[in-house]
């Protein structure tokens, strides 16, 4: 039975996992920074406060950087809920972004429509590619994990081929596409910041996915399959179809995230490698315990740490890759069901005892009345 004390404990456990990760970060900083105090200040405080004042620009940057990971986090959330370990988010993000970019460059459309069509195209292509691992899984029982991992690389090389050999803007020094038409660039929420209206779309997507997962039949079926596939099958759910659906939705969300990131951040396609948002999405989903509503908060946390690490590498000379170590540690402890299991056991036993006592008291009371 879930009660207050146990949910408090769950909260504390998550907190402990994060605390351990921060502790590891501190130890690493102590070893490698010239000025550990300054490095820690950069990591924890500077993303919000700098030079004694609230740094609004930095805060908005944190929000802006959340956008793609909210999408990939939601995608992972839907797929993992159905117990589908599809790790193709990386590829879907890159492909979605690329297709959206092509539409933004080459197909002239009206002002509002252009953005919509470009994002929609990225979304659809993301969903389409995920059909491959999903159908292979359902029809042939081959691992969707291995297949989607391989697909990431195939997508990356195909995109790079088209970017380099067909769509490259040769007048630039670096490999990039031609600039987007202004009608396809997602406008900024606040000018001169990184924060675009894509962030608002991400929040809308969060609410939509939460509604889908907890208030619709399909969402229920997806969650049920994740909890007990055989039960779902024998109670008459179309398990195969739902497995495909969950992965296609995951692909669509990733593709949308890629499209919005590309159209909202720069005005040309610049990715020469898998962007990494797919993997961060997994961390975000783990932190949110696969609950869509919690995804933006988890994304905010990761984004904050990311910004902290970035500042740390600029001002304190600690390599920004430290974020990966922090993420890995959080990841391991957060997902560890038996982390602090002893304490949990004690709480459960205590609860049970108290309940027994209450019952005994009640029973004694009843007995006295008779």
């Amino acid at each position, binding site marked *: 039975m879930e009660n207050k004390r146990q949910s408090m404990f769950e909260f504390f456990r998550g907190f402990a996992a994060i605390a351990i990760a921060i502790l590891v970060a501190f130890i690493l900083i102590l070893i490698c920074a010239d000025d550990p105090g300054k490095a820690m200040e950069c990591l924890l405080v500077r993303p919000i406060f700098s030079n004694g004042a609230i740094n609004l620009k930095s805060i908005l940057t944190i929000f802006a950087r959340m956008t793609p990971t909210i999408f990939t986090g939601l995608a992972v959330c839907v797929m993992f809920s159905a117990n589908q370990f599809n790790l193709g988010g990386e590829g879907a993000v890159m492909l979605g972004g690329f297709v959206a970019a092509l539409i933004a460059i080459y197909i002239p459309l009206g002002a509002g429509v252009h953005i919509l069509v470009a994002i929609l195209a990225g979304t659809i292509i993301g969903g389409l590619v995920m059909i491959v691992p999903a159908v292979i899984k359902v029809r*042939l029982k081959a691992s969707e994990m291995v297949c989607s*991992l391989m697909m990431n*690389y195939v997508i990356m090389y*195909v995109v790079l081929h088209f970017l*380099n050999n067909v769509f490259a803007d040769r007048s630039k020094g670096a490999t990039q596409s031609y600039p987007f038409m202004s009608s396809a660039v997602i406008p900024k929420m606040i000018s001169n910041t990184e924060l675009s209206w894509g962030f608002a779309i991400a929040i809308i997507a969060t609410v939509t996915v939460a509604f889908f997962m907890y208030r619709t039949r399909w969402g229920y079926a997806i969650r049920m399959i994740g909890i007990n596939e055989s039960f779902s099958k024998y109670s008459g759910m179309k398990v195969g179809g739902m497995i495909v659906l969950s992965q296609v939705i995951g692909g669509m969300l990733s593709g949308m995230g890629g499209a919005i990131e590309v159209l909202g951040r720069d005005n040309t396609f610049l990715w020469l490698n898998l962007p990494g948002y797919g993997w961060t999405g997994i961390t975000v989903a783990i932190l949110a315990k696969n609950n869509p509503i919690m995804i933006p908060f988890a994304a905010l946390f990761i984004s904050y740490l990311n910004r902290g690490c970035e500042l740390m590498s600029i001002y304190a000379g600690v390599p920004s890759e430290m974020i990966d170590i922090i993420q*890995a540690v959080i990841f*391991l402890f957060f997902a560890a069901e038996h982390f602090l299991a002893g304490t949990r056991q004690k709480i459960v036993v205590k609860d049970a005892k108290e309940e027994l006592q209450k019952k005994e008291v009640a029973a004694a009371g009843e007995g006295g009345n008779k």
Partner: protein
Amino acid sequence: MFEQLINMVFSASFGYSIIRITSPILFAALAAVVAEKGGVVNIGLEGIMMISALFGVLFSYWTNSWIPGVIGAVVIGVLVAMIMAVFALKLKTDIILAGIAVNLLGGGGTAFLLYLFTGLKGNTASMTTPNMLTPKVHIPLLKDIPVIGQIFSGHSVLTYLAFLLVFLVWILLYKTAMGLRIRAVGENSNAADSVGVSVLKTKYIALGISGALAGLGGAYMSMYYSQSWNIGIVAGRGFIALAAQAMGQGEPVGAMLSSLLFGFASALGNKMEGMQGFSSYLVASIPYLVTILGLVVYAMSTKKKIKRFRENAK
């Protein structure tokens, strides 16, 4: 163009490069085989290879000799696998998530560790000395035979070790008590438990062996193949190894054959890159496509087998 391609495929140097490219994947595929036989999915191979590759270079740099480097890479591989095992088996982190965490460590964490230990950023090319690289072995007699000598002689010590390990892993799995325990735990852990096999201990051992093998793969990458460590050194080979394991039906020899298939596709890609009319990017995607196709073909054949089996049973 195709004539040129065919001439190339039938050249001795092509055979040589297949073996060279196959070796690291073979190490990792064997690692996947042992883990899978013990009933654990080791998706952290990619990360373990990255970390071991880095420490292989570091250890050999500190001692100015390749042997401590290789040993160090193996030890670190086992260590990382043990960390995974503690989380997965004791603290009940999902093994796939534990693997992903190890891959995160391998991705950016290694770059951080490199900076921590040496102050270098991104790669170790400036550290490399000839003493740090695993030596090439020229096999007497064999090396003098035309064609065959050119293909099979002159590889790294580790390459020969990789192919020898196919045999050793087979012996381990099928001819030793430990192997029997590993297979029993993987097949049905409850049954194994009921006859007194310690399931946890066996899984720890399987993961440990898996880590050691992946560590060798990492050492091969940084101490022979690329001659130094860099951030993109493993490039999905750990994942490909998982595919090779699945394609090879989880058996050492099968995994070797699928690794060779991948090596072939990769070598072909490398050679085609230099030719006119092929996009180097599309060619680079061939090995991954081949892996997906291989998975599909294998899955289809298993499905047919099951169907036939069921029909016969009727």
